[in-house]
């Protein structure tokens, strides 16, 4: 179980670092074992920042992230290595995840040398081939190749196989299928869903709501580093309450109905948010009232396991 409590990430910006940019602001949520949680947001919403903090790639400004009750921030040396045995990430661009001058299967060799030096080479080779078959690849076709000789889908499956070799408990999947083609992306998505059966928890970071709905049990909607709405995916998708979620849902291109004529609000401001006052969605919100500009709305539970950060949220009639 991975738990985020009041996690924030602040960057110093401005000429002398005098201003603060709140990339993530007081985010709390839990991902249970064997659960897929979708982290949904536009670019700049802080969704990747959260993924990177979980992976310890960047520091946490305040708040705590804990895995099975152990705070991850003070982990050093062997303890950190043990953490990476359990938690791994896969990122958007499979091509830049590899060193192009080495063969792609070098990543498996590194896992062997670093984490399982006691396993002998032949046994390891068999384990690699078995795992590759598990992720739907034919080892004969994909081993001993350079990254440019493999397709994006194959490379992405390689990375999933690498994570599986480590016997991980938690996977951070940051936009992993947005660069894949329509005919192959769904297979990678199905593969992720099957990994759940092994008890793996997944944080699925995406901006695509239909993909999030397809795979996740729990969804967290982020905007400018703040949680707007979170809870059970079905509840949020069936009846989005926050005006931001509603706007997002209305913007998704669907194959069963056309967009409604209502215009989408686009960002107007040319400066990033450096001041924290009031609701972050105030500038674009159609139902905002004056107090929204000065008071930050708390996240309130409106029904079991469905939280919304807007006191005026209601179902559209």
């Amino acid at each position, binding site marked *: 179980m991975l738990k985020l409590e009041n996690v924030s990430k602040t960057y110093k910006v401005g000429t002398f670092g005098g201003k603060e940019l709140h990339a993530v602001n007081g985010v709390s949520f839990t991902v249970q074992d064997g659960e897929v949680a979708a982290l949904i947001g536009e670019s700049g919403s802080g969704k990747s920042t959260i993924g990177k903090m979980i992976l310890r790639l960047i520091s946490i400004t305040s708040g705590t992230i804990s895995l099975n009750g152990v705070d991850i921030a003070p982990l050093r040396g062997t303890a950190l290595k043990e953490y990476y045995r359990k938690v791994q990430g896969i990122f958007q661009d499979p091509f830049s995840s590899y060193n192009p001058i080495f063969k792609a299967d070098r990543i498996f060799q590194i896992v062997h040398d670093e984490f399982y030096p006691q396993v002998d080479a032949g046994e390891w080779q068999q384990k690699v081939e078995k795992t590759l078959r598990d992720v739907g690849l034919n080892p004969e076709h994909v081993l001993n190749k350079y990254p440019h000789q493999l397709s994006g889908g194959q490379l992405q499956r390689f990375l999933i196989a690498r994570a599986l070799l480590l016997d991980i408990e938690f996977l951070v999947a940051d936009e992993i299928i947005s660069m894949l083609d*329509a005919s192959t992306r769904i297979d990678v998505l199905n593969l992720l869903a099957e990994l759940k059966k092994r008890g793996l928890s997944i944080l699925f970071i995406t901006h695509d709501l239909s993909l999030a*709905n397809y795979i996740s049990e729990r969804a967290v909607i982020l905007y400018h580093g703040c949680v707007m709405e979170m809870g059970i995916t079905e509840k949020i998708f069936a009846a989005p309450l926050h005006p931001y979620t509603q706007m997002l849902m209305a913007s998704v291109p669907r194959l069963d109905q056309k967009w409604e004529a209502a215009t989408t609000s686009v960002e107007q401001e040319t400066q990033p948010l450096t001041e924290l006052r009031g609701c972050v969605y105030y500038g674009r919100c159609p139902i905002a009232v004056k107090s929204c500009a000065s008071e930050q709305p708390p996240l309130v539970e409106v029904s079991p396991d469905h939280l919304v950060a807007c006191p005026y949220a209601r179902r559209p009639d």
Partner: protein
Amino acid sequence: MALQVENLTLYYQTLRGDVHALENATFTIADGEIMGLAGESGCGKTTLGHGLILLVPPMKYVTGQVTLDGEPLPIWDTDKMDAFRFSRISIIPQYAMNAMNPIRKIGKMIEELLTAKKVDYQAVLPELKRRLELVKLPPEVLKMYPIELSGGMKQRMVMVISSLLDPSLLIADEITSALDVASQKAVAEMLVEFRDQGCCKSAMVITHDISILYQIADSILIMYAGQLAEKATTTTIIHAPRHPYTQLLISSLPEIGVKYTDRRLSGIPGKPPLLLDPPTGCRFKARCPVAFEKCNEVPPLIEVEPGHFIACWKETERHA
């Protein structure tokens, strides 16, 4: 007809031989039509888009005619195309985020661009400001550097620049791919608005995202591995596709109401062929569930119903 393309074949020259990126493309775009061009990466959709406006090595013209507003378009001659580029045929490039000169203020850059085409900046300025309003950008952006704008704003800015001289054909190459859903919708709707207001006579929208095309395109052309598979009205392609590739492609798209636990979608097994040495006949045959011997010959593109073109031997047989 705004655009007429006949038997257009474009290859890429490489040291290992020609890459058959586009083979015998024949289609038309009517005045006022927004045609979507969809397919997987490497299917030749960008090759087709770029070939129409900037055909430079390693891309190589092989055969075919292109007519724009009844006038032959000399796409094989880069110099002669200068007269058409930007003014008659224009493109919103895939890299729109980085398309603007980073060391010029946007207004200055547009001025230089227009001067190169011998158009007076001051005369165009009122219309430019009106169009900025259309895409919800303040006129102050002309005094800013590109770095001061967000990705979505840059995308909209480039849209305005590309269509400034009212081209007959506007090619939009993956304009929504790098954007968030909300900006995606806004940009797509603005493109329709541009067409409606006559800022461009017709448009060709290249994308891999078919659900976007369903929202804005009048017709959709599906390509596979350099060959045209099917062209029809948007409704037909989405709700009644006939080519096996289109059918599989449409059924693999996750829709917002679908959950893994309720209905498991499946992809298309296999992968597209390499175009350096493409298979003979229909290039989809290796992945096609209904392929038969006849598929070793190239299927002709036939019109099964008015405006509905399919290149598949199964359909040819049915209509024989």
